[in-house]
């Protein structure tokens, strides 16, 4: 076993896939930042709201007021530097830190694919992605290599495969497969789609998409790994993600996944990609090729591989933490995030908070729009950790306003995947007496149905 690991550790591969991946990733991220900025979302999501929902343990991460723009600026510049391979290590660390900080500022905007970007950029810190076709290699001949350890490319493939596989496993549940939910809700709304509009209202199509989607997620990693099916698998990747792009508002994610899937191809393909980029940007690829000859990049220590190994192991285990909670995962969302559960739920909620003076028994209701943006209110009303954090905020706010003996109660209803709305949080529990933790939240009312499967 040890000898096999050592043998694997010493295996090398062409540096081109890593270089192409680095360039395309950097460019995508830069476009993503520019897009986010140009839509005015920095202001809308991180400046305007009066209150931000932080992640447990990361309460210290907050938007920086006007400096938030600087943060995005740094992130964008870092992305460009990554693409160029200019001071790559610093650039990718800076990108990882700034991007992750942005995501941690408010969990309202949590998306699996933002988490995916954070994971990927963390991984890339430990990979010699600047060994070839980079400014670093151009500036310093000693930093140019034609071969890199094989595990460095495999790590990216493994992470992508894991995302698909876990996303596929998560779809193996009764709502998705038996009830074709939530696609049965989402697809008929695509009423005016050219050609497909009418089809979107057919029940068989909802099932076809549900089962097809699950099969796609489960099969695609293997189809990409296996050389004979690789090209057709890639065609499927393109088709699938473009389809999701048409049907759902998922921003840059489809393109990121399409580009990422290229990493599965052999070096020849990547040399062609780099050649094309060379032509567009009038770079002499031959010059870069001449520098590398047969030089092989070797890690000086075992640390990078060890960290990446631990990271992958963590990724393998972390999504299963939901098994530690006895309640229905979709209902309580304990252990739901950071687990590649993508597009699984249509959840809508309504949360009416009540501020009570415990001594006087006087009470009044809160107008959520006084404190939250519509986006925040929407996210808050279906997720218990949001509700709790907001309740504590309200408690502090009204106490500071001079109200005494404040208790905060919520009357809330949630509808999940087309079921009739049910009471969500126990209305008799003073939320100020509850604290956020990894423990089970026993103040969430029982889900009056059962969802079988993962």
């Amino acid at each position, binding site marked *: 076993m040890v000898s096999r690991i050592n043998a694997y550790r010493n295996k090398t591969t062409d540096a081109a896939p890593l270089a192409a991946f680095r360039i395309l990733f950097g460019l995508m991220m830069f476009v993503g930042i520019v897009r986010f900025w140009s839509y005015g979302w920095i202001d809308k999501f991180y400046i305007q709201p009066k209150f931000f929902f932080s992640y447990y343990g990361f309460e210290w991460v907050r938007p920086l007021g006007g400096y938030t723009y600087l943060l995005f600026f740094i992130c964008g510049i870092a992305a460009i530097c990554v693409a160029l391979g200019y001071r790559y290590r610093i650039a990718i660390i800076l990108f990882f830190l700034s991007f992750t900080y942005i995501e941690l500022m408010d969990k309202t905007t949590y998306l699996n694919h933002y988490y995916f970007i954070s994971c990927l950029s963390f991984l890339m810190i430990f990979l010699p992605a600047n060994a070839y076709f980079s400014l670093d290699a151009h500036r310093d001949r000693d930093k140019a290599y034609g071969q890199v350890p094989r595990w460095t490319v495999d790590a990216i493939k493994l992470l992508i495969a894991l995302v698909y596989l876990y996303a596929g496993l998560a779809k193996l549940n009764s709502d998705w497969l038996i009830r074709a939910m939530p696609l049965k809700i989402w697809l008929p*709304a695509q*009423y005016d789609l050219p050609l497909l*509009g009418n089809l979107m209202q057919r029940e068989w199509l909802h099932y076809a998409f549900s089962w097809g989607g699950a*099969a796609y997620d489960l099969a695609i990693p293997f189809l990409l790994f296996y050389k004979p099916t690789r090209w057709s698998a890639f065609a499927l990747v393109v088709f699938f993600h473009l389809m999701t792009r048409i049907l759902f508002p998922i921003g840059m994610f489809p393109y990121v996944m399409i580009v990422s899937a290229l990493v599965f191809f052999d070096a020849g393909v990547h040399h062609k990609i780099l050649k094309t980029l060379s032509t567009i940007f009038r770079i002499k690829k031959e010059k870069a090729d001449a520098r590398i000859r047969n030089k092989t990049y070797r890690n000086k220590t075992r640390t990078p591989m060890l960290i990446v190994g631990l990271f992958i192991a963590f990724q393998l285990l972390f999504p299963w933490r939901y098994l530690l909670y006895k309640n229905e995962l979709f209902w309580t969302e304990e252990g739901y995030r950071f687990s590649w559960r993508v597009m699984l739920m249509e959840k*809508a909620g*309504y949360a009416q908070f009540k501020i009570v003076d415990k001594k006087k028994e006087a009470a*009044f209701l*809160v107008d959520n729009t006084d404190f939250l943006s*519509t986006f925040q*209110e929407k996210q808050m009303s279906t997720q218990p950790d949001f509700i709790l954090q907001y309740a504590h905020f309200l408690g502090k706010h009204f106490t500071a306003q001079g109200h005494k003996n404040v208790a905060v109660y919520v009357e809330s209803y949630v509808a999940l995947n087309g079921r009739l709305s049910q009471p969500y949080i126990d209305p008799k529990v003073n939320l100020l007496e509850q604290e956020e933790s990894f423990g089970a939240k026993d103040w969430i009312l029982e889900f009056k149905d059962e969802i079988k499967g993962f």
Partner: protein
Amino acid sequence: MKLWSFICIGFLLFACSKDDGTGTIAPPKSGFDRGAMLVNWADNIIVPTYTSFKTEAESLNNAATAFTNGPTEATLQSLRASWTTAYISFQKVSMFEIGKAEEIRYRNRLNIYPSNTEKIENFIAAESYDLALPSTIDAQGFPAIDYLINGLAGTDIEIVSFYNTNGNAQGYKNYLGTLTETILQLTTMILDDWNAGFRDSFVANTSSSATGSVDKMANDYIFYFEKSLRAGKVGIPAGVFSEQPLPENVEARYKEDFSKQLLLTAIKASQDFFNGKYSNNNTTGESFKTYLDFLNSIKNGEDLGSLINAQFNAADTQANELNDNLALQIETDNTKMLSTYDELQRNVILLKVDMLQALSINVDYVDADGD
């Protein structure tokens, strides 16, 4: 494996192309026709309702002119009758805050209460005001007229004599005239816009996006029901959002015995729109109700349309228990007001959570990525 993925692609391509090939042969409507719903809303409900409200607004304006030309008890009573009829008629258009109405913030211009009487008095004294300014919304519309025709004195004789003898009687007359004229003018503007072309673009915009007519209308409708009807007419005066009840915040507070009728009219109008009932007769067309019924035929879930109608009825029944004067009701027995609020609130949940989920409409469509 290669074969498998080609089969998969082939299947999906086949699925896509099938629609072109057989679309004309298959029965044309196996889906719900959102276009037909929009046509029903526009042609049978919204435009006729605005049209009849405009007629009432004209009568109101004429009655105000007659009164200011010759303030007598007779002209006052005729003005008050016109105001009452118009105010009731307005309850049926208030929820259609879309297009031009949204642009000019129609509801804010016509029905912000309680009125700021101090502001009104200052405007009259200064004889200078711009009712288009957002800061003046609590000094105009039906509530301000209420003050001028019901609130200046205790009896009709006193009110009439106020308009005859007050040092600045002309100022009051002018302001009253401006108020009724503004209502008519804004309403005409909206109706003209519907007739000029907004109707066509509204009906054509069947898309399901932030700007799609169904999404916008659903949001506007629910916003109205939640904020203006549930909170404005019942919740706020009953003290649901404050530590103490605020009976002075009822609608039409100076008319006193009128607030319940306005509430009942609004509940009925909301339910009628939900069911797609024509404004002029009892025919019903495509509506949220029929849309939910169609979607339910795919989903086999709860009969949401019936649940919502049952809840409308429950709210109506509860509201019928109230005193004609809601302020009096609050002061004597607020629990009935609170029960009415609860029934309305139950429907907010059914509409905002369950109906919007069934229709796959986002609450105030959030412009952000999802995953």
